C-alpha cells in the first residue's frame, strides 16, 4: 500500500508527515526515515510525493484498486 519510501533517499526531514492531510505518515526518529504508520488510511492524494525535497516517495496503487 502506498506510499513507498526509498530508504536510500529519505533523510527523515518530516515534510511529508506534516503535509499529509490524513495523518498517515510518521518518522522513525532512530532511523531518520519516513514510514506509513496508518497505510490503510492513505487517500492517494500524492502530497507527500509532491513536497518531498529528495524525491524519496513513490505512489503505488494497491492491486485491489487496479484490478477490479
Amino acid at each position, binding site marked *: 500500500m502506498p506510499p513507498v519510501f526509498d530508504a536510500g533517499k529519505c533523510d527523515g526531514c518530516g515534510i511529508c508527515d506534516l503535509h499529509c492531510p*490524513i495523518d498517515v505518515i510518521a518518522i522513525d526518529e532512530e532511523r531518520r526515515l519516513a514510514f506509513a504508520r496508518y497505510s490503510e488510511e492513505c487517500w492517494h492524494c500524492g*502530497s507527500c510525493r*509532491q513536497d518531498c525535497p529528495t524525491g524519496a516517495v513513490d505512489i503505488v496503487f494497491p492491486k*485491489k*484498486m*487496479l484490478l477490479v
Partner: protein
Amino acid sequence: MGSAEQMGSVIETDVLIVGGGLAGLNAAIAAAEHGVSVVIMDKGGIARSGAMGGGIDHFTAYLETGEEWDTREAYLQNLGKVARGAVDLKVHNAIYCRELKGSIERLARIGNPLTQPDGTFYRTRSMGRDGPLSINFNGKKLKPRLADEVRRLGVRALEKVMTTSLLTRDGQVIGAMGFSIRTGDLHVVHAKATVLSTGRVDRLFETPTGIPFNTWQCPSDTGGAQAMAFRAGAALANMEYVLVSVVPKGFSAAGLNGLTGMGARLVNALGEEYMIRYHPHGSRAPRFKLAEGALTEIREGRGPIYVDCRHLSPAELEHLNMTLGYDKDTLPDFVRQKGIDLAKDPLELQVSEGAIGGPTGGLGSGIMIDERSAATVPGLFAGGDCTDQAGTCAPSVTSGYAAGKQAAKYASTVSSKKEIDWEQAAAERARVLAPMETKPGVHYREIEDVVQKIMWQGVGPARNELGLRKAIEKLDSVEPHLGDIGARDYHELMRANETRDLVLIGKIMASCALYRKESRFGAAHFRVDYPKTDDENWLGLVAARRNGEQIETSLKRLSYEMPEP
C-alpha cells in the same frame, strides 16, 4: 469542577478559524487584513490540508467580458434554475458575487494566478453551466501559497490539532477547544468571533471498493463543523442531499470534470453517449444528473460505463495529458499503472460512494448562513463546503473571505469576551478523551463500518419512508456502542471522535430526508415514495435544529427574485 489549570493552554484571540482548508485560509487572510488577531486550528498541516491541498484545476467565475452568459445576472439566473429549492440567491450573491473579483485578484497576488502563462484565462464549459464559466488553471501550489500568505500576515496556526467542541456562554459562541493528534495536549481557544470551515462530510457511506479511505472527496473532512455547530444550537440546511459522482473504476478520484470539459464523452456498453437521454448538456450535465444517469444505465443492464477521449484532437489530448494531474495529482499514475492510454482506450467508470456536500455545484450542506456569513447562533460564522450556501472551489474562496471579514468586523464590536465556562470545558474534555481510557475497547472501524452500511442502504441515492425510519432507529442503537471504542494513541482518538460526529450527522441527514416528502436534484434526493419534484410545497431549505436531544426539522421557503448587486 473544571478550571483553567486543568485545561492545558488557553489562547486568547480576536478571531478563531476552525479548519484551515481553502475557505479557512481565505477567512484568515480577510480577518488578518482587517487588523485583528487570528488563530487557525487544523487537523492537518495548512500547506496541504483539506480537499484540494494536492491541487485543483477549475474555478467557476463569470468575468463580465460582454458576453450575455458572462454576467452576474446570468450566473445567478442559471444557479436559481439548477439549484432551485437549495440556493438562497441573496446569500449567495453576498458571499460569492460580491467577493468574486477581489478573490481572483487575491489569488494572482499571492502567486497562484488563475491565468495561463500568457496572461489569458483558459475557459471551458462544464457541468450544468450555460457558458464556459470554468476557468481551467494549475492549482498545484494554491494551498501552499495561501498558507505562506497566512503566515506572512502573522496568523498563528495550530496544526495537527483536531477541534472537537465549541465553547458557549449565554447562548453565544466564545471559541473552541480541541487536542493535538500527536501529543494529546488540549488547546482551548478563547475568541471574540469564530469561523467554521471544515468542509464536507465524507466517510459516512460505504465505498464501492471496500477501502474506507478511497473516497472521492477528502476523508479527513467528517462533518466536524456541522456537528459542533448543531450541538451549539445552530441551524443546518441542505443536509438531506447525498452527493455521488462518477469516478474511475477502482479509484474514487476527482478529475472527471477536466475530461468532460475538454469534450470527452460518457458512453455505455452499447457505445451510446447515454447522458443525452438525461440532460440537454449530455456528458456535461450537472453532477447529480451524471450520477442519476450512471446509476440508471448500470441498473438497467447497459453498464459498464466509460469515459471516452479517443475522438479528441491531438492538441486536445496533449492539453489533457498535461493537465490531468492538476486536480488529482495521482490520477495520471493510476491510469498508467492500470495500463490505460487515453488516446487509445476508454477508461471504465463507477458510481462513487456518497458524501454530504451540497445538492449541486456551487452550494454546500451544513451551517445555515445569512448575508453576513453568520450562523443562527451569535459569535459564529462559516464559509466553504460546511455551509448551506457555498461549495466547490470558487465559492469556498469567496465565502471564506467573506466570513473572515464579517467575523473580524463583529470581533471589533466586542469589547470584552464572556468568560469561559470551565465546567462545560471539563465535561467536553472528559467526553473527548474517554476512548483513551476504554480498555481494551473496539477499534473505531468496527463501528464506522456499521454506520457506513446503514447509511448506504437506507439513506443513499434511493430512499423511502420505512428505509429512512429504520436507518434512524439503527443509528440510535449504534449510539450506546460509541462508548465501546478504544483509542491506543491520539491519532485513533481523532478517528473515534470523527465516528461519533458521523453518527450524529447521519441521523440529521436521514431526518431531513424523511421530512422532505418530494424528490429533488436527481439522485441527490430521490424518494421512491414521492418521486416528483413538488415546488408548491417544498420550494425551500429543510432546516435542522437541536431541541434537547431531538432533531427538529422545518421548511424555510425560498423565492427567486434577482438580488441587488
